[in-house]
Structure formats: C-alpha cells, structure tokens
C-alpha cells in the first residue's frame, strides 16, 4: 500500500511537471520569438499611430505636426501616407497622400476603410477633436481582420471553462492513479517473485504489462538459481553419502581392532607392558569411533540430511540420564561430577530430538574428561527462565586452548567448516553448536574461573505446558 501511494504521488507530480513544462516552453518560445522579431525587423513605423495623431495640433486655423521634437519625416517614417478628414469627409491635412486618394470621402467609404483597406492600403484611423486621423501603411505589409462573436457563445465559453478545467484535472488524476495501480500490480508480481526466489522457491512471475521483461529475466534468474541449488544439493548429498559410507565401512574393521585390543588388554598371560599397549590401542580406537560418529553426524547436520525426531521431552530426566551415562562410562573414573537442576529446569519441557541432545551433552562431558587426563571436577547446572533452558557444563581443568575458542567463534558465525587446514580439531564441540542451532538454541564456549572450560547450551522450551501424566517433582 505504501508503494502504491508513492507511485500515485510520483505519477501525479510527473503529470503536473509535464504540463507546467510544456506551458513554460510555449510561453518562452513565444516571448523569445517576439523579442527576436523586434530585434531583427522592428516595428513597421517608428511611432505608433496614436502618438502621431496626438502630435498634430491646430495652429491659426490650420493643422500642423509638432516639429519641436521631430520633423514630419521622422514622425511618419514607415507610413506610406497620412491624412485628416473633417466631419464632412473633406481632407483638411495630408502628408504624401497619393493624388487618387485626395478627395472627399463618403460615410460608406469611411466605414469601409476603417474596417478593411483603402484601395489596398492597410489603414488605421483615430478619432481626434480636430477630425479623423488616418494613416496608411505600404501596400501588402499588414493583414487586418475583425473579430466578433455572439454574446451567448462567449458567455457560454467562459462559463464552461472552469468545469472543463476541473474535469481535465480529475481525468488526469484518474489516469495517474490507474497507471500507478497497474504499475503497482506488475511490480507486486515481480516483488512476490523476488520473495519466492529469496525463500529458495522458483520465481514463476507472469510476464505481462510494463514489467514483462523484468519478469522474464526474474524467471530466468530463478531457473538458473534452481539449477544451481539442485547441483549444490546433489553435491551435498553425494558428500554426505560419501562420509556416511566411509564411516560405515570403517566401523567393522575398527570393531575388530578394538575387540582384539580389549582381549589382549584383559589377557592375564601377557606381560603388563603389552597389556598397557593393548589398552592404549583400545582407547585410541574409542577416539576414532567418536570421531567417525561426530564426522558423520556433523556432515548430516550441515547439509540438513539429519531429520530431527522432535518430541516433548522433560529436561530433568534427559540431563540426569546423560550425566549418569557419563558417570557409568570408564571416562569419568578420574572426574567428580556435581549435578544440580533447578526445579524449573527439572520440569521444563523441550520439543527436541532427545538422542541428539544427549549426544551434545555427552560430547561436552567427554570433552572435559578427555582433555584433563589427570582428572577434574565437572559441574553440570541447569536453569530455566524466560522460555529458555540454560545448561552449563564446566570443569576446573586446563580450559579451552585459545585457538579452539577462536575457531568455535568462526564456526558459529557460519564461516566454513571446522577441521579445514590449520584449524584445531573441534569436531565434537562444533557438533554441540550444530545440535543446539538445529533446536533453535545456541552454544557458548568460554573459560571457567579461575581455570577450566565452561560451555553453556541454551535451548528454547516447548510452548505447551507440562505433558499430562508427568507432574513436576515436589520443590
């Protein structure tokens, strides 16, 4: 609607501008022509007829031209002749009057030359107190015509002028509004196409009206983008499938490596040193296993190949389970875990993929244990407020290396994938970011005070109330 208003305003302003422009141009041209004419040709006569008439005066019963200022030649320069008739039509004064004109004039003759010509001489007459002053221009130098109009017609024309102008104005405004509306419709069409394009859909704009060409180009661009997106999607799928395939194929050989390493580790017949080596192989196998799983999942999340199996899930049991699984795993042997959930967080319900969230917390907890082989105290805290659940996993170990924090910052900003040349290995933590983002939340990584690592995962709560059949625990 705002665009339509702007278009109407612009159209009307343009119409007004064009009208004013044409009028100004016409007036300018006319004035310019007159000025130019005057400069190059000047008037036919040096003095207007009425000035000459007024310069005549009676002296001693005879008419004389005032010679004080100019001579008779100067006064009448440009005129062919001049004469003065008395009331009876007799010539009482004359100047270069041709002999064939020097006679008494009847009333009908006077009326005829006053209106038209005198023997083809164009004439101008003035009634003065001393008689009728008549000047003649050279033949063929002046065109005369007389205007007259019926009064009723004249009055009618004057009276019609105002409503006619008003109607014109209304018509112009109406045409402007209509044109603006049509333009707006076409533009709206193109705008919707652009919006669809921005949303990743094909543009498909009707190619009609003033914007037909624009629409056609938009459609072409949309088609181009669609083909490009298809290509990218195909490539992403190929990459995801490739990673999934590799991670699948690695699993069976890795199972054998880990299985036999475990058996050797537990073989009492072997010397302690060999068993320790076998234990190291098994532990590294576990690391590869975690890496392969993380890599597979991170690629699936990156290319949206991992559908979220969302369901209402209570935060308390989910977190307790994750922490308990960590405590029950061998990794937690050297770690003390302090777990506390606020009553609000305990009852908080998330609309989430429980498996993925558990994976995120598992990664955070395992990270604390793996990077602090000497042991550390892990604290897990959960708070719920303002429609969001914040889970903090902190430890008092070595903390994140600065390069890791920097890499996580850029990864969160969507700049490239971690693990590219030179970047530190942060796959597990990047996965936490991805999982949080997939749930509409975020993950923040920082150093714990006075030392150690601190990760906070913030997730939006499900809009619904606590599902039936599960009551919140007593406070």
């Amino acid at each position, binding site marked *: 609607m705002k665009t339509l208003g702007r278009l109407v305003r612009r159209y009307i302003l343009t119409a007004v501008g064009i009208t004013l422009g044409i009028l100004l141009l016409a007036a300018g041209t006319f004035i310019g022509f007159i000025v130019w004419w005057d400069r190059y040709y000047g008037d036919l006569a040096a003095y207007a007829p009425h000035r000459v008439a007024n310069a005549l005066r009676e002296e001693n019963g005879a008419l004389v031209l005032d010679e004080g200022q100019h001579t008779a030649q100067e006064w009448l320069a440009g005129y062919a002749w001049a004469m003065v008739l008395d009331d009876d039509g007799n010539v009482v004064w004359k100047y270069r009057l041709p002999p064939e004109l020097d006679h008494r004039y009847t009333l009908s003759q006077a009326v005829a030359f006053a209106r038209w010509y005198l023997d083809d001489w164009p004439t101008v007459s003035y009634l003065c107190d001393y008689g009728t002053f008549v000047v003649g221009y050279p033949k063929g130098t002046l065109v005369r015509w007389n205007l007259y109009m019926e009064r009723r017609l004249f009055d009618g024309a004057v009276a019609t002028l105002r409503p006619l102008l008003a109607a014109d104005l209304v018509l112009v405004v109406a045409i402007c509004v209509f044109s603006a509306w049509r333009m707006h419709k076409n533009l709206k069409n193109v705008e919707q196409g652009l919006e669809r394009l921005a949303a990743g859909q094909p543009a498909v704009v009707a190619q009609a009206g003033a914007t037909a060409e624009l629409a056609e180009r938009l459609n072409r661009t949309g088609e181009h983008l669609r083909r490009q997106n298809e290509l990218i999607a195909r490539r992403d799928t190929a990459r995801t499938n490739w990673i*999934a395939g590799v*991670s*699948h*194929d690695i*699993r*069976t050989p*890795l*199972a*054998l*490596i*880990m*299985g*036999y390493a*475990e*058996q050797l580790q*537990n073989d009492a017949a072997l010397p302690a040193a060999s068993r320790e080596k076998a234990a190291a192989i098994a532990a590294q*196998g*576990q690391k590869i*296993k975690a890496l392969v*799983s993380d890599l*597979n999942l991170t690629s699936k999340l990156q290319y949206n190949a*991992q559908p979220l*199996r969302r369901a209402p899930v*209570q935060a*308390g*049991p989910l977190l*307790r*389970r994750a*922490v*308990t699984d960590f*405590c*029950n795993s061998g990794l937690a042997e050297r770690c003390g875990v*302090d*777990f*506390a*959930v606020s009553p609000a967080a*305990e*009852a908080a319900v998330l609309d989430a993929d429980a*498996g993925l969230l558990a994976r995120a917390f598992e990664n955070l907890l395992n990270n604390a244990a793996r990077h602090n082989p000497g042991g550390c105290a892990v604290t897990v805290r959960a708070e719920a407020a303002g429609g969001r659940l914040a889970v903090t996993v902190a430890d008092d170990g070595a903390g994140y290396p600065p390069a890791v924090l920097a890499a996580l910052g850029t990864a969160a900003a969507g700049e490239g994938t971690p693990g590219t040349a030179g970047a530190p290995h942060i796959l597990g933590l990047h996965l936490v970011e991805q999982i949080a983002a997939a749930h509409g939340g975020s993950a923040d990584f920082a150093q714990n005070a006075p030392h150690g690592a601190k990760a906070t995962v913030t997730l939006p709560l499900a809009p619904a109330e606590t599902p039936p*059949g*599960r*009551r*919140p*625990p*007593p406070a």
Partner: protein
Amino acid sequence: MRRIQDADILLVDDNPALLALVREALHNAGYRSLRTAESCAAARRALAAVRPDFLILDINLPDGDGFSLFQELHAQEDIPALFLSARDADADRLFGLGLGADDYLTKPFLTQELLLRMQHILRRAYRAELAQGGTVALGACSVDLGDALVTRAGAAPATLTATERALLQKLADNRGHIVTFDALCEAVWGDGYYGYENALNVHIRHLREKIEADPSHPVWLLTVRGLGYKLAGEAKA
C-alpha cells in the same frame, strides 16, 4: 537353562573375522553354546536345526538383510535378539527396535558393553527358567530375587515387597552403575512417572532397612546426589 552362560546363541554376520572376535569374547565370558552363520541361508538352516535362545544379527548380509531375516523369524517364534551393525543412523536403529528387537548396538563396540546388554536381555527374557532370578550377594546378606527373600547370618529372613524387589532387580541388573531416579520409577511404576522421587525415597529407605547392616550409613545401596542410586559391586565389602 540354569545360568545365562548356558544360553544357545546364534551369531549372524558376513565378516568371518568379526564372527571369530565375538565368538572368542563370548567364550572368554563363559558362554559355551555358540553357533555362527555368514548368510541368511546359513542362519535359516541353523535355526531349523535347533531353536537358539538368543540372536545376534548383522544387517548387511550377502543374501539379504538382517531386518527381513529378523522379521521372518519373529513372525514364527519370539526369540530375543540384538542387532549388531555398522549402520549408525537413527533411522536404522529405530527401525530395528521397532521390528521388536531387544537392543541395537553399533560397531565398533566395547566387548564389555555387548556382554552387559546380552546379559540384561537374557536375564529379562528367561527370568523364569534361570535359577530363580538369581541371587544378589551383599556381603553378609544375600537376596534371592526369585522369592524376594533376604537372608542374613544370625537374623530372621525378611521378605521384600513387590516394589522393593523390582527396585533391587533394576539396581542389580546395572550393578556397579548409577541408575537414575527416572529409570527406577519407570522400572517400578512404568513409563511417565517422572518426578516420583519422594515415593521412591520411601521405598529405598525400607529396602535399606532390610539389606543394610546400618541403614543410615549404607554401604551397598548408595545415593548418588542429584542423579539416582547405585548398587555397589561385589568386590567391595
């Protein structure tokens, strides 16, 4: 079947090296009756000969897939089964469990984890046939889960209530590991009873009075603050 280790286990996987690994691991754990098959056809033959007590199935097999094989068997007989596969997608895991399999473990796996999960399934499936649910030894005290009887040297035997027996069963199944409040509530009252911690505390207190020498300073049934409870391992005394 008196002991879990007496169970007849059929292992189906197309990788001979993996079959050998699992066979050795199970043998080391005391399982004596092990058969292996490398294809669906071989598995069908083995099944036709003797009904196994437990199935470990791979999914990718040369002449079919583990899912259809399991469906086919499951339609005839209810044999406890565990999928052991390199397929780690949630979709596969959920599909396998949805078919009615008891568990789904992805390769690579920890031998110990496979053994624990097997034990868990076997104990649950053959509780009636096994030596009466087994006996839990708690130092001077021993609990027979079959008839819910607590015997202690120099004291009159005590009987567990059904809830206490279910709690102890769950804890004993995961002995040495923490079991969350939620998992205990679920074991006793079924799904959806999250947050019944106060009720749970009462039953735990009663259970401690029966199995602990000093119920206010428990050495077997331990509280893990904020998380749940744990039944201490037998090595501790």
